[in-house]
């Protein structure tokens, strides 16, 4: 029985290219399957608790978790497996699975409507939120090895993902104008999984964009994200008690402004093209911080209010069909962090974390890329980390088209 099944599977597999011929791409009955291989050689300082000066970040969640950021030398980044297909005439589905050693992470798993019409798009499941510009991009699409510092401060290692629904509407105008609203579980930083009814994360965004002549195009956006956190744990340094555990309960609101501009001669990017992108954010968190020392002795509750911001500017120029060079500047402002009477004597770090990154990459084809990057990282006060990264990104299979 089993061997017969195997034989049938083999016949199917061999027949596949022929069977796929009459359809085109996204129409094919077989799902589009692609696998992204990513890895790097990383040269950087050994830093005990790598963080962003003056910011509470998602990384502190994973206690002792050896996340990619701290690894040095030869590093394999997670491999991304993407499966997507039209489900029927009404829906399309896609899943992105990130795999690394013992870790399997379901990055995205959603379905979206294709037949609602009137400019309406509905997406449900787990998805990268439509807020900002870089948020929806997976690691293999990034123009630099790391994502911008502001994304790391806002959401952690990847962009903001939540389980929920997204409704988008494209206005019937000659100029591109799109509005989106999302409601979700809000389980990821800066929120926490709260196991409640209703939506723990709410997002709104608007995008506008157009061409200027044949050679220039742009898109600008404004987004807002509201999430709630319950006992969100972080470590803090205390002058009196040493290391202090803090649990934040309250709300986190961020708004983002994004802009991207692309140029290519006569709108033909094959030979030369240029891309400029910039984003700015401001985040306010307000609530209470329950602190306890290392022996879990409560140190009282503080009102906790922060107001922080940051931005990045990045330019990438493709000067031949194979070569691209890019420069990015990141800067954050730890802003105001108020802790009331601060009975736990938590040390408040004030900093302007910043980083300058330069990269050059070679692309044999649109499916293979090797990148050399140099970064002068000043994300922590008093430490300058000169980082060198040699990275590869390889994509196998029918890799779908990317957004603008």
């Amino acid at each position, binding site marked *: 029985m089993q061997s017969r099944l195997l034989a049938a599977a083999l016949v199917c597999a061999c027949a596949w*290219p022929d069977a*796929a*011929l*009459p359809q*085109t*791409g*996204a*129409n094919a009955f077989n799902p589009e399957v692609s696998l992204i291989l990513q890895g790097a050689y990383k040269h950087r300082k050994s830093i005990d608790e790598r963080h962003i000066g003056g910011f509470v970040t998602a990384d502190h969640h994973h206690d002792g978790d050896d996340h990619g950021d701290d690894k040095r030398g030869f590093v394999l980044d997670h491999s991304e497996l993407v499966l997507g297909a*039209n489900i029927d*005439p009404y829906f*399309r589905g896609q899943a992105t699975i990130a795999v690394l050693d013992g870790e399997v992470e379901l990055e995205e798993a959603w379905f*979206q409507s*294709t*037949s*609602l*019409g*009137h*400019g*309406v*798009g509905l997406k449900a499941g787990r998805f990268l939120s439509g807020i900002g510009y870089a948020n929806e991009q997976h690691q293999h699409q990034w123009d630099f090895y790391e994502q911008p510092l502001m994304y790391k401060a806002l959401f952690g290692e990847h962009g903001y993902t939540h389980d929920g629904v997204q409704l*988008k*509407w*494209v*206005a*019937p*105008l*000659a*100029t*591109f*104008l*799109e509005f989106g609203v999302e409601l979700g579980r809000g389980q990821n930083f800066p929120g926490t999984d709260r196991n409640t009814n209703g939506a723990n994360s709410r997002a709104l965004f608007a*995008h*506008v*964009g*157009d*061409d200027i002549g*044949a050679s220039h*195009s*742009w*898109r600008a956006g404004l987004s807002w994200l509201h999430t709630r956190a319950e006992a969100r744990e972080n470590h803090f340094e205390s002058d009196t008690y040493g290391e202090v555990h803090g649990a934040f309960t309250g709300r986190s609101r961020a708004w983002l402004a994004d802009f991207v501009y*692309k140029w290519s001669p*006569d*709108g*033909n*990017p*094959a*030979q030369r093209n240029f891309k400029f992108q910039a984003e700015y954010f401001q985040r306010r968190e307000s609530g209470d911080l329950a602190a306890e020392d290392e022996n879990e002795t409560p140190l009282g509750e503080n009102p906790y209010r922060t107001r922080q911001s940051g931005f990045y500017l990045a330019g990438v120029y493709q000067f*031949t*069909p*194979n070569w691209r060079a890019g420069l990015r500047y990141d800067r954050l402002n730890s802003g105001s962090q108020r802790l009331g009477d601060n009975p736990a004597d938590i040390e408040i770090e004030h900093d302007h974390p910043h980083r300058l990154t330069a990269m050059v990459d070679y692309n*044999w*084809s*649109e*499916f293979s890329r090797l990148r050399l990057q140099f970064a002068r990282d000043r994300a922590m006060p008093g430490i300058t980390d000169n980082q060198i990264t040699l990275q590869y990104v390889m994509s*196998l299979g029918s890799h*779908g*088209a*990317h*957004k*603008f």
Partner: protein
Amino acid sequence: MMKRILAVLFCLCALPASAAVKVLATVPEWGALAREIGGERVEVMEATSARQDPHRIEARPSLIARARAADLLIATGAELEIGWLPVLLRESGNARIQPGQAGFLEAAAEVTLRDKPTTLDRSMGDVHAAGDPHFQLDPRNIPPVARALTERLVRIDPAGAETYRANLARFRTRWQEALARWEAKAAPLKGLPFLQVHRSFGYLAAWLGMEGRGELEPKPGVEPGSAHLARIVAEQQASPAALILCAAYQDETAARYVAQRARIALVTLPFTVGGTPEAKDLFGLFDDTLERLLKAARDATP
């Protein structure tokens, strides 16, 4: 009162129907064809220009806005637009132009494609599983697409059925006359050996009986290196090609390099409508293509 509201609503709903049928063509040749068949009843938008590589453009915001508005999308298909059209369709939120709907027309489905690969492997470069999608340069492929386009326009806008069918009949008569003229004129091109930058002119060569001597690209979509070009130049010593063909949107650097060293004429062809100032419509596209080929062939063999 209710009646008046209904009347207003009816007017609002009726407005788009009375306006022109909005056609979005992924490439200029189908835009030009839509103008021939649709005439005054259609408003044609084009996603790419003749200066752009249709394999390589991005789903720009302006294109999403155009796709949102379209009643009919006409694409080449055969994976030519695979790098951007799926995103455009998804982001547009336009149910009318999704594959399987009356508003989605894939031109490649109407013709027989050449050079269908027997095996599919990315080591062979950017191969199109369904076959070579640059079939617009065989003028015999235009009438079947025109017929399919007419049927779709009739389905979408039945009120214009007569106009569309009359335009199709007129177009086909003119096309048959032009075809006879082109074929007579192109007789000296038969058997002419040529090189091409990308495999863009397979259909044109098959129609005219020209002899393809290969591409400057080592593999489809892969930029040629200098060693590869030097080898091509060396090959020309023994059996020289008469022409190197380059499409208006393609970079001429490699073609110019080979042309100068091997002393072969470089001919830049419009490739699609708008590729040269003379290629104003589909007739102009073939008139000018032949004009340029014949002139270069005359100069090459004095």
